[in-house]
């Protein structure tokens, strides 16, 4: 835990460092393992008070979680709005939460710790979870709060609007941009095997596949994807839009070849 507290002192200016070094914001693997072990029994009282400052501030976290409740009305069209117990709502999200943790952490071991602590925290806060809130965003927020408090404070997610979309996509004629592709029944989509989906996904162009990989498969935000690929967020959005359309076309062609269309 000592290494972590030293990192916190550096980040919070406790060590009177007038010239912060960005490299100091990056924790070593051992530091992250330490902070994630929130149940450690070895901390002194002084360490405990610093730790309390370092770990998520519940008031701030509660406000952020409330803002998800306010901003994310129940969406009848999505799977992850449920009414039920902690286990019924949160555990089905495990794979997606794991992928989010893998993106955040450096190693599988760190992801495991991060996920474990996020689930424990989510359980602690379950009474404040408002039924109908998008549960995945709710638990991700808790996880991000645990993680970001170990690195730096105030790393708020950038708000995305349609004004961010690349002008070339916006300026296309709406009718041609959104020309109907046809849409198979959901039962037909369900019948496509995982291997077939993998094969279709791999037929996407590299630039479109790489944004879908990051956002869908690695649970990265658009902002993180833009940073990772060093492209504007609007380019991420237009590639996502086109990548999804391409995938839909590939799916339609596939089920047509296989005679699956109902």
């Amino acid at each position, binding site marked *: 835990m000592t290494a972590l507290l030293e990192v916190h002192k550096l980040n919070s200016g406790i060590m009177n460092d007038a010239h912060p070094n960005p490299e100091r914001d990056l924790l070593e693997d051992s530091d992250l393992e330490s902070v994630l072990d929130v149940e450690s029994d070895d901390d002194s009282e002084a360490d405990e008070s610093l730790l309390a400052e370092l770990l998520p501030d519940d008031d701030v976290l509660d406000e952020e979680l409330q803002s998800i409740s306010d901003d994310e009305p129940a969406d009848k069209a999505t799977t992850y709005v449920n009414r039920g117990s902690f286990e019924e709502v949160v555990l089905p999200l*495990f794979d997606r939460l*794991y992928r989010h943790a893998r993106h955040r952490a450096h190693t599988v071991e760190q992801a495991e710790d991060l996920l*474990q602590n996020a689930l424990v925290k989510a359980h602690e806060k379950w009474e404040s979870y408002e039924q109908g809130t998008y549960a995945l965003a709710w638990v991700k927020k808790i996880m991000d709060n645990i993680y970001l408090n170990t690195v730096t404070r105030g790393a708020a997610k950038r708000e995305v609007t349609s004004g961010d979309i690349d002008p070339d996509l916006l300026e296309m004629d709406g009718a041609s941009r959104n020309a109907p592709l046809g849409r198979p029944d959901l039962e037909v989509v369900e019948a496509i095997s*995982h291997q077939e989906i993998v094969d279709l996904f791999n037929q996407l162009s590299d630039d479109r596949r790489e944004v879908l990989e990051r956002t*869908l498969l690695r649970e990265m935000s658009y902002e993180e994807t833009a940073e990772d690929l060093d492209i504007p967020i609007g380019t991420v959005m237009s590639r996502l839009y086109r990548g*999804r359309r391409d995938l839909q076309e590939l799916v339609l062609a596939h089920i047509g070849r296989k005679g699956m269309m109902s």
Partner: protein
Amino acid sequence: MTNLPHDCGCASARLRIGFVVDRELNAQECAEVRAHCETCSECAEELKFVDRLSDKVRDACGECPPEDVKARVFDAVAQKIGRPLQF
């Protein structure tokens, strides 16, 4: 920056459905698209399709947590909350 028209017709909704499914678009625009889908069955079906296809890609192509990791996390969480998890 190019702004979309304020009214959310089919063209505007279709453009934004994927961003709504990704939960990336701001709350106001998500609400606009959802409100449109309440009154337009075609766009509502498109929203469901894009959502389902996204899940299908995640299930097929995403990294799955190793079973031993899953078991260890569940055990550790159960221990910390002081009761077995109810599956």
